């Protein structure tokens, strides 16, 4: 951990997938799934990454953990650039950063008992004897709200919410400083998802873990995150403190997203600023600002050049020519 309490720092992260064509699999181009994303997360804080499907948020999270190999960038976790590690060193470093997944059905090996799943990290890193491991698994199970008897059972015997708890216990076993939560509740029912969210908040309070929280649910991100970044086609278009994003969003995409977001209140049924079209194919994003074909305010500059992500005060970052111009003229 560095002195300013930053646990995670990601700089200029890129992940480009080659598009292959023809018999000889020639590289014909690339999908820029993540295209220069930077952020940092302080100890005990939650950083939210929101966006629609295909915006690259999941790839970004996985690249940040080197579960997919980034094309470019730097990732400092606890002060170590994990991109400089390889083989055994990288595997050892993985104790410090863990992930929980969206799909509680796919993320647990159906052929392993819950005890083996949760104890696997300890076993892989030889962190505990068999006896200690069993004790630790019991402890973890109880911490996440399951009974110790669950250790001998198989994942299919549990409900979605319980499986998500098992996945959390697996990640917790290694006492990571950084936890990626990749849509952890979007497959769960509301009442169950509330339990999981409360659990994640409690755990963060206890252990001061830093969370990277990925979600498409704006209401949820607003509730749980300290800082929020909105992604569109591989890039962050706006980033600010959670309240700022929801109260003073500047980027037209963020605004459209917020407007489209249904609120659980029939009194707030507003005539929506409807965003036309859908997210373009990431293999051939529009020239200039990726958002300009769907943007009402777009002008010539937007068609030509991708706007830089600039700070407009108070840590509020926006990548939009219009906002940039406005803030310049007002200065």
């Amino acid at each position, binding site marked *: 951990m560095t002195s300013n309490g930053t646990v995670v720092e990601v700089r200029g992260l890129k992940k480009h997938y080659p598009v292959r064509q023809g018999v000889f699999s020639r590289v014909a181009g690339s999908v820029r799934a993540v295209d220069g994303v930077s952020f940092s997360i302080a100890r005990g804080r939650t950083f939210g990454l929101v966006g629609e499907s295909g915006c690259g948020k999941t790839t970004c999270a996985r690249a940040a953990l080197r579960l997919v190999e980034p094309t470019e960038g730097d990732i400092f976790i606890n002060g170590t650039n994990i991109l400089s590690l390889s083989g055994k060193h990288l595997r050892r470093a993985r104790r410090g950063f863990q992930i929980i997944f969206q799909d509680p059905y796919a993320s*647990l090996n159906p052929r392993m008992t819950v005890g083996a799943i949760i104890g696997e990290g300890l076993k892989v890193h030889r962190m505990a004897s068999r006896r200690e491991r069993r004790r630790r698994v019991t402890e973890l199970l109880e911490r996440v709200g399951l009974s110790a008897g669950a250790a001998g059972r198989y994942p299919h015997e549990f409900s979605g919410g319980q499986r998500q708890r098992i996945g959390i216990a697996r990640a917790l076993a290694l006492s990571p400083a950084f936890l990626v939560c990749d849509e952890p509740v979007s497959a769960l029912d509301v009442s169950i998802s509330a339990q999981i969210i409360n659990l994640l908040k409690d755990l963060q309070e206890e252990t001061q873990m830093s969370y990277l929280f990925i979600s498409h649910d704006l209401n949820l991100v607003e509730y749980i995150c300290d800082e929020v970044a909105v992604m569109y086609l591989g890039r962050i278009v706006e980033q600010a403190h959670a309240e700022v994003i929801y109260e003073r969003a500047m980027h037209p995409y963020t605004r459209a997203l917020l407007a489209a977001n249904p609120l659980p209140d029939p009194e707030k049924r507003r005539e929506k600023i409807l965003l036309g079209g859908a997210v373009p194919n990431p293999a051939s994003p529009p020239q200039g600002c990726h958002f300009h074909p769907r943007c009402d305010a777009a002008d010539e500059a937007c068609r030509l050049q991708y706007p830089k992500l600039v700070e407009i005060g108070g840590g509020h970052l926006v990548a939009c020519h219009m906002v940039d111009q406005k803030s310049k003229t007002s200065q």
Partner: protein
Amino acid sequence: MSEAPVEKSPSYWRLVAREFMRRKLSVAALIGVSGFILVALFAPWLANDAPIVLVRDGRVYFPSTFTYPELRSIDWAYYMDNLPEGQWALMPPVPISPYRDDIFNTLRPPSREHPMGTDDVGRDVLSRMIWGSRISLSVGFVAVGIAVVLGVIFGSIAGYFGGMVDIIISRIIEIVICFPMFFLLLTIIALVARVNIYYLMFAIGIVGWTGVARLVRGEFLKLREQEFAVAARALGAPATRVMFRHILPNAIAPVLVSATFGVAGAILTESGLSFLGFGVPPPTASWGSILSLARQYVYQAWWLTAFPGAAIFLSILCYNLIGEGLRDAVDPRLKV
């Protein structure tokens, strides 16, 4: 809560077994195959000239009289007909060796003495059938065993690592598949000077691994991206552990199903080769070779066709039924 004992619940394979047991036809087939296997295992005690137990000069020879060095040179057929005074012997249920010919009793129809008749040199067909089951079954198991081992190794490497390794292995698979299997087998057999059963097993295995490899590769490609495999990597588990502890156990069920069908296929291939005269060399008995002989006597000796034909048919039917039962039992819709 911590006092609660760790409850063990049935593992996946226990559930598969339970599901399999619900299918009566498949269970019957399993019993049938077990019967065939028992016959093959105990062939020397079921059909032989030599007795199972022999008491000679106060010494008891058991269980396999044919393994004692001092008894090796005995011509059992003659010896048993003239059993010396004071000696006692217990004969197998079919007291005739598959190789004992009898030129006075050629092509005899089924009778009390020869329940399945005799062949063109007077050998007992039942005895040959019993010994032949060893060839057929061992060819099936060993050949498929080789195919599965090779297939799993190459398939998992190709599927897990992808990229160049995958491209190379996949192209090799495609090349092997391009050759019609039967002719490839004939070529391999033609290349070796003296065909024996091991070459046959090896050849069938070498030709058959591609199917398994493709299956395993596909499963690995699919499972590699599954979140539980990603989770294992995230925990810092090395590649070998991810491959063999996480992915393989989830990929093995379809392989097992295809292997079961593969055994049936290998038996049929061996029979086919023997029928064409490329199989095990005479006088070794196999179901295929008896059938091959039957070709010349189709009109005179129906029993030469009927019994080996029925045995091949039944064993293949059984393996296929087991395979089907297994396929249904390991169905992912089982929700485990």
